[in-house]
């Protein structure tokens, strides 16, 4: 039932799309009809390009986003642990946060070469900040009464962090990770602009340049649906694992 409802809108959009396409009001070049896209998808799948692209992109995103999360947590810990570090890092982090990664590609190539490192760097730059800021703000928001409790229990730094600070930040961290994941997935395009020869982003860019809108649509929809799927899986996993301790992160 739940699932059914969440499929209503996609189906409605599909129908609307079909209607527009068959009405002929819109250039089929800009918006190819669903069946055209479906045919394109089938032929991309048959040629093995689609599955290969998916695999390449998935592994790229998992690597990049994994590093992103680790870095973001480490940074949040550092910044949370010391006021001086926070002040020292505030300016570089704010600058990096504001500068478009795409504008930095020449510099990134200079530093990281044209291999996969640059691609990972772009994914990291695109996705690290939601994770970092949400984690930092979550860690910062320890309840003062819990802080006092920890001192009266003479908890060591580690146990204080493990049992009080971290759990208090869990809901924020989850939000951050979900937001960040979206961006890392989106960053595929930017990352695969540079020296990639496969991947969903590459597929989209390449098809766009060759003006094959049907393949572009296949790429877009594949990116969208895989992302949606992963997001839903993540959500359900969390609910299963955490709902007893954090009833507020899942709806009843």
């Amino acid at each position, binding site marked *: 039932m739940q699932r059914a409802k969440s499929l209503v809108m996609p189906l409605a959009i599909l129908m609307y799309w079909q209607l527009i396409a068959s009405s002929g009001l819109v250039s089929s070049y800009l918006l190819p009809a669903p069946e055209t896209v479906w045919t394109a998808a089938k032929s991309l799948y048959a040629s093995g390009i689609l599955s290969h692209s998916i695999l390449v992109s998935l592994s790229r995103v998992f690597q990049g986003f994994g590093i992103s999360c680790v870095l973001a947590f480490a940074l949040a810990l550092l910044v949370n642990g010391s006021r001086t570090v926070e002040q020292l890092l505030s300016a570089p982090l704010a600058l990096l946060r504001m500068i478009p990664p795409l504008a930095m590609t020449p510099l990134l*190539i200079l530093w990281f070469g044209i291999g996969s490192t640059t691609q990972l760097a772009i994914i990291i730059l695109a996705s690290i900040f939601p994770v970092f800021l949400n984690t930092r703000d979550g860690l910062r928001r320890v309840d003062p009464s819990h802080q006092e409790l920890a001192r009266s229990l003479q908890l060591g730094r580690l146990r204080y962090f493990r049992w009080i600070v971290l759990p208090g930040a869990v809901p924020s961290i989850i939000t951050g990770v979900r937001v960040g994941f979206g961006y890392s997935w989106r960053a595929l395009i930017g990352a695969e602009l540079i020296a990639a020869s496969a991947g969903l982003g590459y597929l989209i860019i390449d098809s766009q340049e060759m003006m094959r*809108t049907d393949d572009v649509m296949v790429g877009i929809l594949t990116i969208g649906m895989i992302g949606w799927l992963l997001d839903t899986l993540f959500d359900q996993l969390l609910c299963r694992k955490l709902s007893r301790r954090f009833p507020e992160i899942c709806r009843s």
Partner: protein
Amino acid sequence: ETLDISYVRSPFNLQMIVMKEHGLLESEMAKQNVDVKWHEITSGSQQAQALASGDLDIAGVMNTASVLMANAAGNPVQILAGVSRPTDTFAIVGAKGGPSTVAELKGKKVAGPKGTVLHQTLVAALVKEGMTINDVEFIQMGIPQAFAALQSGQIDAALLAAGAIMNAQREGAQTITTATGLTVPTLVMATSEGVAHKHPEWIDAVIRAHDMAARWISENKEQAIELGARQQGVSLADANTLYDWAHFTQRLDQSDIPNLQAEMSFMLDNDLMRKPVNIEAIILPQAMQAN
């Protein structure tokens, strides 16, 4: 009513610059009571999209590859005038101390934008030396990225255009070959089939303004180059070089047809285009040299 036209300055489209800066198109269109709106939308695919959506009436400058691909994809874009055949503006550039001839490219890393005239030039150059694209390690990236990769020593050669070539040369890189003799990159002014149908008088006005700009340029060459330099933000010397490289033209001629054919077969061979198009049909009669 308004005429929407895109404003594309690079690589060094002097007629465009003069046409806009001198308000030539505006005064031509004013005779028909039509306003002119300029849009800075420069990439070939985006101009093709905007023509298809009806947001753009005239694509100021497009390369013929984009025109061919758009048509192959079912987007009827039509050529209304020539702009230039800048064979020297596109080049294969070898890294400092790296390859200096096409033969030396064998097994080397070459980076550049795929599916463009630069790509085609590379293939043609290799073929001329009895090699194929598989004899080099071709890496896909945009021109600024390829330039950065060349300068930081990540690749052996880059496919560059215009200013990037000059900058690379200043840094010690050497031009292996330009497109001259290999391909003829052609820049054209284009419109959509719908506009060509509905407003032939607009097309004529655009061509008139385009011609007026060319006339002014030939009469005031120094001033024109200076204007171009200012608009492009390059030095006068560089602007002069760009001018020389550009090989401006106002019309296409019969020699362009086989060039377009060659370009199309290149794209068909490399799976950049899926089906051939009728080249005669995408060139408006006004675009051809009256001989």
